[in-house]
């Protein structure tokens, strides 16, 4: 069963990379020109372009190029035309940054969103509930880049309590908020809805009738069932999160894979982009696996299958 899943995953990864390879290859624009123009600050001459393309074998026919790419990628020797260094190296250098950013955004969203959703559900239609719902609506509507700049303006320029850019624990605070706000709002709403549905179930009535303390009713019996859609949500939103890191990484100068991927696309660097797509697809496989495992822990009905 696991083997079947892995095989499907591998197929998806390769198909995704082939698709991105072809699309970027066919797109107008030339990787040699884009990269050289960036490096020189000026338009390159035809000779320079030809030299660059020969060096990275970009002048060969399409399928030969793909075959070379495949061979080099699998053996770990693929070189990224943008930087002249190993593609795997570029990914591993930047991946920890994006991972910590995404992870802390999810943690922030969950740690604040789930309790807020629970409170909202318990105290339904009260003032607290209204406030929480407003926060959720606002959170979903604010664009992340605008929020990021606003946060910098307020916390860094006006209050001077946080640094603008760089890497470090303090540096992660603002990017986490900017990136995690959407997810936080979504989690709040989903938790609220899910909790309301669960709390109206018969087994909740039974556990109250049994004489269990309210806290246990809510957390052990209510939340455990209500949190399943939230896990689904996080798994689904993971892709958005990765996409959102592009803007956040640019604004806060965090050297992550999001920004590098964007730069590669602008530079038409299909060699690096396809490799990154492979890695990211692999990430998705892992995330989906984790989500499935969490299901089996939380929901016994899934285990029997």
């Amino acid at each position, binding site marked *: 069963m696991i083997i079947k899943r892995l095989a499907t995953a591998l197929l998806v990864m390769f198909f995704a990379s082939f698709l991105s390879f072809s699309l970027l290859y066919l797109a107008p624009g030339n990787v040699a020109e*884009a990269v050289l123009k960036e490096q020189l*600050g000026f338009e390159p001459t035809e000779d320079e372009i030809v030299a660059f393309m020969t060096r990275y074998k970009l002048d060969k026919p399409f399928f030969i190029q793909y075959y070379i790419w495949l061979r080099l990628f699998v053996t770990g020797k693929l070189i990224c035309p943008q930087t002249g260094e190993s593609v795997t190296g570029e990914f591993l250098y930047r991946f920890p940054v994006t991972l910590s950013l995404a992870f802390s955004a999810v943690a922030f969203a969950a740690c604040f969103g789930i309790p807020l959703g629970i409170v909202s559900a318990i105290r339904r239609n009260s003032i607290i509930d209204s406030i929480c719902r407003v926060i959720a609506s606002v959170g979903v509507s604010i664009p992340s880049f605008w929020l990021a700049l606003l946060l910098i303006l307020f916390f860094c320029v006006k209050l001077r309590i946080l640094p603008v850019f760089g890497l470090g624990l303090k540096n992660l605070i603002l990017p986490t908020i900017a990136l995690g706000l959407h997810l936080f709002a979504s989690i709040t709403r989903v938790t609220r809805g899910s909790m309301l549905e669960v709390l109206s179930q018969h087994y909740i009535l039974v556990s109250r009738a049994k004489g269990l303390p309210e806290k246990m009713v809510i957390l052990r019996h209510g939340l455990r069932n209500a949190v399943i859609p939230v896990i689904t949500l996080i798994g689904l939103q993971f892709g958005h999160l990765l996409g959102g890191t592009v803007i956040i990484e640019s604004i806060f100068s965090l050297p992550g894979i999001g920004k590098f991927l964007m730069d590669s696309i602008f530079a038409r660097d299909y060699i690096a982009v396809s490799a990154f797509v492979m890695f990211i697809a692999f990430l998705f496989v892992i995330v989906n696996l984790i989500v499935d495992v969490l299901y089996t822990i939380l929901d016994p009905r899934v285990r029997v299958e």
Partner: protein
Amino acid sequence: MASTLEYYYPFLLDLASEFRSKIVSPSAVEPAWSTSGELVKYIGTGQFKLAEYVKDQYAVLERNDEYWGEKPKLEKVVWKAIPDAHALVMALKTGDVDIIGAPEHHSAVPYEEVPKLQADEDIEVSWQSYGRFQVIRFNCYVEPLDDVRVRKAINYAVDRGTMVKELFAGIAEPANLPMCSWFKYGPIIEGYEYNPEKAKVLLEEAGWIDSDGDGIREKDGKELEVELLIPQGEANADVVAVYLQSELKKVGIKLNIVSMESSAASEKRKKGDFMMYVHHSGCIPWAPQGILWQNHYTKAEGYYKHFHTDELDELIENVYTTRDDAKRDEYYQQVWKTLNDEAAQLPLYDIVKVVAYRDCVKGYNHAATMYKMDLTSVEIV
């Protein structure tokens, strides 16, 4: 090109151009002395040594005490990578960085931020003109721009003075010549002044009349419509394009703005699939000769839809091969006259390099070229 000429005057200028040639130590490549070897070490000869380099984050430079020339006052420079322009400005405001705009060749500090920075007591702003104009190139082989009267009319129709004052708070200077006049061999001719009446007369002469009263001229049933191609990220091009649109409408020309991602725009331009393209007139020392060669010399095979004639090709060849300085200047002036008379381009304004720094930074001087950063006399007090 150099191999077919006996004498190539810009040889030293090309060597001095930052981006055309870099001097590499033979032992920095593997295998040593091989021109197709791989760069394995950074060996430089400058005022600062590279002490630490963290990719995409920062570099630490230390003063090179063995430098042959004037040693800089600073002991250490930390060069941080900040990709976003707004974050850059905010980093200066908070004091996380001391100086911005110096390493990039232009437009690191957006013009619209300058008044706000000037208002800040702790920050000083300074700018320098390097004679690099933002210029719009015409595709002289497509209708209606194949008619020189239309190109001239466009040049007369734009009020560059007002544009610079309104859009850039007077920071940049208006430009109406194909190349900066204070360059050596620069044009000493009169450019196009703002004269919308003359523009209208020229368009009427060319047969473009507004027959249906909608404000746009027509000829043979076709509207006088031109398209401006902007590569995304080109400094200030968006605001300038909108201004141009309104100026051209006043004389009856419809301007369509097409903003495209820079690789795609570049490809269109190479194919000749454009009418007007936002470009620039080059930086010293590669201007004026290099730009002339790349844009108007047919055998350079760069941009074959820009203005080309056999006479112009011959003039450019003469420019490159004449030994006599005075004669070379004559040839240059003929080139400028041709380009100006044929209105092969629409010059807009002088792109100045803006640098902003905190007032603890003393002694900053603008470098000799746009690409360089001169920190020799800088000290922090």
